[in-house]
């Protein structure tokens, strides 16, 4: 007997509300090419990406703090597998602890030859200093910026 399957594909769009805090963060990126975090008054930690409250203390954050644009690589990976909704690989991404921040933010690393994974991993090391680069045309999105090695 023939075993059948039923194929279905959903194309549902979501429009997620960012709220005041994340909106302000992205507007600063879009209009001024600057990055900000929010300080938790109880712990003193600057949270990047910014949140309106700390999930450690459950206190509302109260102060904007400009962070970066330089920082250090906390971790990275290099992706060699195709995601359907992303450009063709390879690409490197990871987390960067921006200067004056206490938590790291994710982003792509660019300007690195990824053709030799081991060699690329020697260049992209934990602790290496990077700088934030901003796109010329910015839309107020996480893809408006990326990281490059500081020496470049």
């Amino acid at each position, binding site marked *: 007997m023939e075993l059948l399957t039923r194929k279905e594909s959903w194309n549902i769009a979501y429009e997620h509300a960012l709220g005041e805090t994340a909106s302000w963060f992205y507007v600063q990126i879009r209009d001024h090419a600057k990055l900000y975090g929010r300080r938790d008054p109880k712990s003193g930690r600057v949270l990047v990406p910014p949140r309106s409250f700390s999930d450690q203390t459950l206190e509302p954050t109260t102060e904007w703090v400009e962070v970066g644009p330089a920082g250090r690589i906390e971790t990275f990976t290099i992706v060699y597998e195709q995601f359907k909704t992303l450009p063709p690989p390879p690409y490197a991404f990871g987390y960067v602890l921006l200067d004056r921040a206490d938590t790291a933010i994710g982003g792509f690393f660019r300007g690195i030859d990824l053709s030799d994974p081991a060699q690329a991993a020697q260049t992209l090391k934990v602790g290496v200093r990077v700088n934030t680069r901003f796109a010329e045309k910015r839309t107020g*999105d996480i893809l408006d910026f990326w990281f490059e090695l500081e020496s470049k």
Partner: protein
Amino acid sequence: MRDLPGKTHVAVVGCAMHAPRDAKQRSLEEAIYAVARAALLDAGLAIDDIDGIVVGANDQLDGRAISVMMASGSVGGVGRDILSTPSAAEHAFVLGALRVSAGQFRTQLVVSWSPTEVSSIPEALRLGTDPYFHRALPLDELSAAGLQATALESAVPDIRQAAISIVVKNRNNGAIAYPDRAAAPRETAWIASGKPLRWPLTDTMVTPPAYGLVALVLADAEFVKERSLPAPAWIQGLGWATEAGLLGDRQLAALASLAAATEQAYQQAGIKNPTTAFQLAEVADATPYQELLAYEGLGLCARQEWLRACESGRFERGGTLPVNLSGGALSFNPVYCAGLMRIAEAANQLRGRAGHHQTAKLERVLAHAASGFAMQYNTVVVMGRDPVAGTHSCVGARP
């Protein structure tokens, strides 16, 4: 934090694990029915003996919103109390054990599954990231595992050799435990020369997602005695804890949540020296770096000793503490329910029902499950031939 005093000891009295060869032979709900029924048969019980049910299901992988709605009928949830834990399959076990321990139910059926029906598991799992800051990145569970492996390789130099030896160990174990499943590379040179998927992880260092289902039956002490259920695996200690949600808020090379879960489980079980307390362990190993972190977090081996311990064969078959004799997720990787399978494998060893990889003379075993991005959720279960400390003080640990 207040303790929730347990009223009774809890045991695993039935287990079933399925790895369907042909996913088209049964619908998902039919396959869930089959594994639930198999666990009941293994326990020597019928559905009328079951007071309540907890399932662990992942809507993204299932392609069913609130998938417990579809699955309720498969597991006996019609007209019977049923809850679902989407956070992790092993959380279904925790909740089921707590419900019995609290004296609210005498028995629980715990079921979880991980299908491969979705066209792209990486794309489906990307829904696990926050939609505000990180979803535009290629961040799925495997990428998160790559980020964690990088952080660990940086924190502990020269551990790649230990990681590769773990892959060899677990795949060799898997070839014995489930010879019909074992197909992944087992040669060191072959594993060491894999193609990168998410650097530093290669296609030979991880195992592709597989279709799997698992079910366990839990019962209280009175029920076990009343029914004369053979060889129960008693839960002596149970701990669970959670890391922060955003990866950038965490120290990926260390697991505070695992330390907290371990402390809770060991305290309940009265474990003073974990290096000698167990005869066998089943631990999270979606990547070999996860298993290394488990060695440390479970107090089995400090990170500076990882390479030496792996070289000595301490965690291999015949070693002082065999780890993942089932082959682990490095041999068979049902992504969402791999953690609950670790618990089921450890329980089956105690019950003398592990099959090809059964170990003799077991008194106490250890199970560890990790789920979420870069092991966000950690659960530790100590099981023994005797009830000993039971599951008293069952409150989630704080990392």
